[in-house]
């Protein structure tokens, strides 16, 4: 962990409006890409908000996770444009390739498979996002190559 929880939280002024940004930072600083109970508790205390409020906010938004996740989060776009261009096959193939269902992490901790609403790269549908990188115009062959590349990097 590059920064401690306290360091991250103290970067912000104690105003509720900073909650979302704070949660992003608390999540991003961990290799496992998730929010812990302690994160929620400390953020609530610092902002002088009830724990339940902060928990409610954190669970509302789909980018936050409460389960430790893999090193690479694979987000499959399932919105109508990607659906039309074959995202169902992409999803099935990913489930096969990674051996996990949506919301799960591979045993080796390399990948977490998630679905996402529109990624905003619809011109290259079907598309997925791994970490911060977007891959579009996918077919099953290309998908295999991409996943293999990430496996080798590990």
């Amino acid at each position, binding site marked *: 962990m590059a920064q401690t929880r306290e360091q991250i939280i103290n970067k912000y002024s104690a*105003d*509720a*409006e*900073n*909650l*979302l*940004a704070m*949660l*992003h930072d608390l999540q991003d600083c961990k290799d496992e890409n998730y929010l812990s109970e302690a994160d929620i508790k400390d953020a609530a205390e610092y*902002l002088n908000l009830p724990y339940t*409020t902060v928990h*409610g*906010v954190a669970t*509302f*938004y*789909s*980018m*936050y996770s409460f389960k430790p996740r893999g090193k690479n989060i694979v987000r499959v776009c*399932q*919105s*109508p*444009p990607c*659906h*039309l*261009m074959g995202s169902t096959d992409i999803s099935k193939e990913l489930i096969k390739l990674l051996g996990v269902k949506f919301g799960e992490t591979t045993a080796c901790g390399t990948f977490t498979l998630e679905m*996402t*609403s*529109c*990624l*905003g*790269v*619809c*011109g*290259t*549908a079907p598309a997925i*996002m791994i970490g*911060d990188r*977007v*891959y*579009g*115009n996918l077919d099953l062959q290309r998908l295999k190559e991409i996943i293999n590349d990430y496996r080798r990097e590990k």
Partner: protein
Amino acid sequence: MSIYRTHILLPVDDGTVQAGVFQVKRQLEELLADRGLTDEVKVLETGTVGLIGKGAIVVLYPDNVHYYNVREQDVQTIVDEHIVKGRVVETLDHAVAGMDVGVKAYHAMGLTRKQERVVLDKSWKIDPENIDEVLANGGYSALEKILDQEIEPEAIIEEIKVSKLRGRGGAGFPTGLKWEFTRKAEGDVKYVICNADEGEPGTFKDRLILEGDPHKLIEAMLIAGYAVGAQKGYIYIRGEYKLSIQRTQKAIDQALKINLLGNKILGTEFSFHLEVKIGAGAYVCGEETALIESMEGKRGNPRIKPPYPVTSGLWGKPTSVNNVETLANIPAIILKGAAWFNTLGTEKSVGTKVFTILGHVEQPGLIEVEMGTPLREIIYAYGGGIKGGKKFKAALVGGSAGVFLSEKLLDVKMDFENLRENKAALGSGAILVMNEDTCIVDMLFSVLKFFAHESCGQCAPCRIGTQQLLDTVYRLRQGQGSEQDIDQLLKTAQTMYHTSLCPLGQSPVMAVKSAIKNFRKDFVNKVQKTNQ
């Protein structure tokens, strides 16, 4: 500043990044250094051209030659042949353009129509991360005009009203009126917000405007703040749009440095501060009151209206919330005048509109054309027609909250009035084209799955209704449905329209109704299969 004989522009967007534009850039820089050309040739990243599926794109100025699908191994040929010897590399996929590169490039690709660019005029001709280049190309001159000539805020609002600019986020509310309401609302503290929480499936125009020309948006926010009497503005950007966030923040920092933002801007009494707020993944936050809740650090649950944000918005203060594309029109209107703006588009739907064309078309992409351009022209002249010579079946216009149009409406003019007359809406400007092999039941399933996933759960009609719609259409799609299910879809969606709190729950009726009305056969086929 040194003078370069050639500029190499590399449009950076998701399409070109995937195709390896950064590898091409690295290769270019290495080779230019190797050939000792670094002082003569400048390589820079720009915003998108709006072409998708053309791979990495390399544009050479002042020659106006565009190379498409450039791979790393092509770079050496471009450097040695074109840059050193001055010869266009005929063996590479390319287009030679005249003064207006956009138009000619489209010609060269076999597309006949020109684009009218107001919003995206500078998008790929400048380096969006370099404020000097922005200033040299007329950036911030609308703000300068206002401050120099001491134009009154009321006069600006009047100009925007006369321009007939309407919100490009979907609802089409007159921008000038929104600003006037905010200005006239009681209170000393007011805010302007730019809604860049673009989440409508099939829409990525705001992202490309932000990434291609973030300074234009900052200038527009300054003008909005000046007009409504706000000293603070926010740009709320989707958490997933990493590049947009990064570029916008960088642009703000640059503007701040030369006092185009901050206190006493350019030595006047006008002060304005701008901040980026980042979303965390919630479609409903595109609704303005949900967006405000989210900015306050809460769950993105929409508020009950009235009161509207213009009287009670962020922290209960009068707030004007405008879409990215709407704001991007402002500087041009101030500079060229409302009368000029009125020459574009139709009588009531004035100006241009940015559309995204997707799905089964030869050339998916982003275009800016005048309001009122027929759908057929957009699909065939700009989108290159249906992929693989197939027949057109349907277009989902306006994103998930949009309408399935059949062939009968191919000639509809794409503007607020004409679409409304045909029980459709412009929405976000997304046009998802489907060929003859597409099953509309399956597409409706995808649309309804999206709504069920994105319903915020605050009000029962939407929370329960989106799930019921999904269950019913799933049954039909699996071949387990009945005729009654088709009618039930309509009833449920209609009930949601009347009872839901916000546009999310009110929207599915558009897709459901149009899908069933225009493509009933697809539904009946599914039912008949069940009965066989």
